[in-house]
């Protein structure tokens, strides 16, 4: 599933840059300089206090699965080779929530509340997306 999922994203990305891509293989969040609210990258203003002042901070990308599902149909043909594949909603320990996939996981290992950690994958040369893996160490760390 894993390689096929990355290939699907690569196909969709094509040669056009997309705003949600990372420019490096480091997982980052934005911290508001005024109120400290933590947000995903891509929003020009703080969604709490509307300040423009913020700085980018590297984050471990640890969190928990809020919920998960498994696609058995490819609504976009690019994902046909990846079936069945999971989609998860992650709640990061740092606060923000995002939709992604858990890589290299058996179906019965997915669970609400399972600990995960971000895994930045280079889906095309120089093009990085945020995926997750089960966080075996994080069970202790959290």
């Amino acid at each position: 599933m894993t390689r096929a999922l990355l290939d699907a994203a690569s196909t969709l990305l094509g040669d056009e840059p997309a705003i949600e891509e990372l420019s490096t293989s480091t997982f980052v969040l934005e911290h508001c300089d005024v109120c400290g609210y933590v947000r995903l990258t891509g929003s020009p203003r703080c969604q709490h206090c509307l300040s423009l002042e913020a700085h980018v901070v590297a984050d471990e990308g640890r969190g928990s699965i809020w919920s998960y599902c498994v696609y058995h149909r490819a609504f976009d043909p690019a994902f046909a080779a990846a079936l069945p594949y999971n989609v998860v909603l992650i709640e990061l320990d740092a606060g923000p929530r995002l939709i992604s996939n858990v890589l290299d996981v058996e179906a019965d290992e997915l669970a609400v509340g399972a600990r995960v950690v971000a895994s930045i994958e280079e889906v095309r040369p120089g093009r990085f997306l945020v995926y997750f893996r089960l966080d075996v160490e994080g069970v202790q760390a959290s």
Partner: protein
Amino acid sequence: MTSIRGKCAVVGVGTTPQGELPGRSADEIAIDALVLALADSGLGKDDVDGLITCKSYGGFGIDTEIGRLAGLNPRYSATLDYGTCNFSLHLAAMAIATGMATTVALLYGTNQRTAGNRFATPAGSGADSLALHGFHNIAGQGALAFQRHAHLYGTTEEQLGVVAVTERAHARLNPGAIFKEPLSIEDYLAQPYLVEPLRRADVCMISDGGAALIVTSSDRVSAAATRPVYLLGMDQVTGLRQYQNDDNLLRPWVASMAETVFDQAGISRRDVDVLFVQDPVSVWVLQMLELFGYCGPGESGPFVAEGRIGLGGEIPVNTNGGQLSEAYMWGWLHLCEAVRQLRGDCGARQVPGARFAQYCSTKGFEKAATSVLGSEVPT
């Protein structure tokens, strides 16, 4: 808040055949529905001084184009991006209450089945990112929401399946419904997963069709040929911050409307005879039953499994068959059915003596609306 109770009424409904309507544009279909609604109401085109259209797949449904095609010069017109008929009805009520219009036509038409909508759009805002992770179709959000509910409360797939099975049973009594083959819970459980834990029967199909309603001020209802169905209460709420909200896929913010809409309507939830829930995914029915207090938090699984949402049950839901079995019309047919139930026009699927109905609808996981309608106005 100024009460809207009894200020306006639905005096005409029109619904076209649903399913596949090849050779008809979305706007033509919408106007077909308008013609039917006007005929139902006994009012003429010249009585309409307000027009509220609803955008539909392919860029159709714009008031300026529909006005041109239908030869209408209403005083007031508007286009809603996502009407679900509930937001549309509320806008009509506001236009009437403020004197900007007296008789408003609401309409929606779509040819998305014939036009080839494959429903492969990403499931929510921030579309690019979601598409890259294969998060397509509203079934994805529905599956996440149900999985969470199952985790929190032990809700089972068999309980969820009762929603689709019940709506199918209702559709079999509705001559206008598309899906009328019998569907048992065994049939449901035998279906393969679409987006696990959801099956095909949990998700609406794509269809063509049109619907229209005529809403007029209460002092004009005597001009219409039909028994008026009054708007008693209406409310809206948003969760526009989306995933910034805790548990957003469970829509906790919707519950605030349960405290407002019944007060406004002058009835209690227990007075509601028939409930309509816009249901692109079956899971929405479970959510609304809980959020509006028909059952307690987390109790919707056992509640539906006990047969309470079927005809003859405690609170019949989506007697038209809903979007899962009647047709996919962004909730418009639900409001048409509510009006017909309160008029007593529903034949084999009529809820005996129905006086009050509630309709709950949503725009993705970002907005929600509810209306309470009645065949009479409580004092």
